């Protein structure tokens, strides 16, 4: 008996000294430690690195929730390629919206050799998740310029707000439509939830499409959420929507922007 007691005693003492960074006030505490404002910093890097370029490659990963092993692997796979200029994460980095989930994912994504931006997914909105997302990454609607391409990243998780917040935010899209070109010739739209999904505000899916079509040289849309690769022309108007699978399915997109078009490659790791 006393042998067991000694064992437990020893184990717990060891754990106690290891416990210094095990202080958690609540799983949804929203106490963000470490790097914040990541999207803004990385957008600066992307804009500087690709200034004046008309051809480049970028990768898209999505729905990394509770797949930390696979997220590590996809980061290693993208790093090993050496031809990727930046990475877009399509949202749902958290599953429960717990603060720790955001920190774990951020710490893995920070191992990418290239800058990355992260979209807001519906799971990221749970509990205090959206507040944590905003602290670590920034606004849920954001846009940046890579070479001659404008990337418009939108929050489309309307159901999470019970329609009390303008999602999708047409004012934001309109600002992008009315923006001075500044060398931008093409636009790519990225979102987490595609139109038609129960999470999307489907009452405005057609006006949404109309607004997108007004963006300068709109090329195609990217989304995540569904956990499988897909490509669809939702409205029969020539605008393609490409769905990226989740990392648990060991897939990601590599998208090549060429002077006269683009190529989308479904990659596995």
């Amino acid at each position: 008996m006393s042998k067991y007691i000694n064992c437990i005693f020893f184990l717990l003492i060891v754990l106690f000294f290891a416990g210094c960074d095990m202080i958690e006030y609540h799983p949804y505490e929203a106490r963000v430690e470490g790097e914040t404002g990541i999207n803004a910093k990385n957008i600066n890097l992307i804009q500087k690195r690709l200034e004046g370029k008309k051809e480049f490659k970028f990768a898209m990963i999505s729905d990394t929730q509770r797949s930390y092993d696979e997220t590590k692997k996809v980061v290693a796979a993208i790093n090993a390629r050496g031809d990727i200029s930046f990475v877009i994460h399509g949202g749902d980095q958290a599953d429960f919206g717990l603060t720790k989930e955001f920190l774990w994912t951020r710490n893995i994504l920070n191992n990418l050799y290239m800058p990355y931006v992260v979209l807001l997914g519906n799971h990221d909105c749970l509990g205090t998740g959206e507040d944590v997302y905003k602290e670590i990454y920034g606004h849920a609607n954001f846009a940046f310029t890579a070479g001659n391409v404008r990337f418009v990243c939108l929050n489309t998780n309307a159901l999470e707000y019970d329609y009390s917040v303008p999602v999708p935010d047409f004012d934001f899209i309109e600002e992008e439509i009315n923006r001075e070109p500044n060398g931008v010739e093409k636009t790519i739209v990225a979102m987490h939830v595609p139109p038609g999904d129960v999470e999307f505000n489907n009452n405005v899916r057609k006006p949404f499409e109309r607004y997108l079509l007004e963006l300068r040289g709109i090329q195609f849309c990217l989304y995540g959420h569904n956990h499988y690769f897909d490509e669809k022309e939702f409205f029969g108007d020539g605008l393609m929507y490409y769905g990226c699978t989740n990392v648990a399915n060991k897939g990601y997109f590599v998208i090549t922007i060429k002077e006269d078009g683009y190529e989308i490659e479904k990659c596995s790791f």
Partner: protein
Amino acid sequence: MRLRNVLFSILCGACMTLSAHGVDSLSSEVLADGVGMMYVPERSIYEIRKANRERQWQRLIPTHLKLQYAGSIGFMSLGVGWSYGKSNQWETDLMFGFVPKYDSDKNKLVFTVKQSYIPWIVRFGDSDFNFKPLACGVFFSSVLTGDFWISEPDRYPGGYYNFSTRFRANIFLGQRITYFHPREKRTYIQGCSLYYEFSACDADLVTFFGDKCIKIEDILSLALGLKVHL
């Protein structure tokens, strides 16, 4: 005139209180003595039942207070609890914790029900200290404020998320060291314990068992606490 009346009534009141107190203490002495008992009024069935009822209710008086730092139920939490069992090996606590808002938009209040099992006590000779090498159990916490739900709001299709953001189930284990005042020196309390505990919540355990790169130390939450034995 009026002043004299007031003074008189105060004096009367004081005398009555004193005499009542005297009688009270005398009768209790007689009862305690048992031998010199001259007259004990027979208690009616009602009085016996009333006394029994009161004894039952008295069991609801908490046997201890707890103050805890961290441990996933609040920055600081305060609670009352009951120790019971042959060697007080069972313990139930009700706790309220406060979580400052940090990077979210609201402070949070968290209510916790905690059930502990403390199987062993190690005594050091006849010192006033003892050590409990293991305290383990479960606790259930619920966020009382903010946009959290037990089951999904109606706007979601059925089974959309399939878990609760408000409610967390946790398991824990820890250790304690207890100091008991010698019986004759006690004034307000019997003594107190210092404890620490490691806990893990349901959501983190799901992640831990699903991912190799999430280590046990990534999901454990440390609590430090003080238990005041009343």
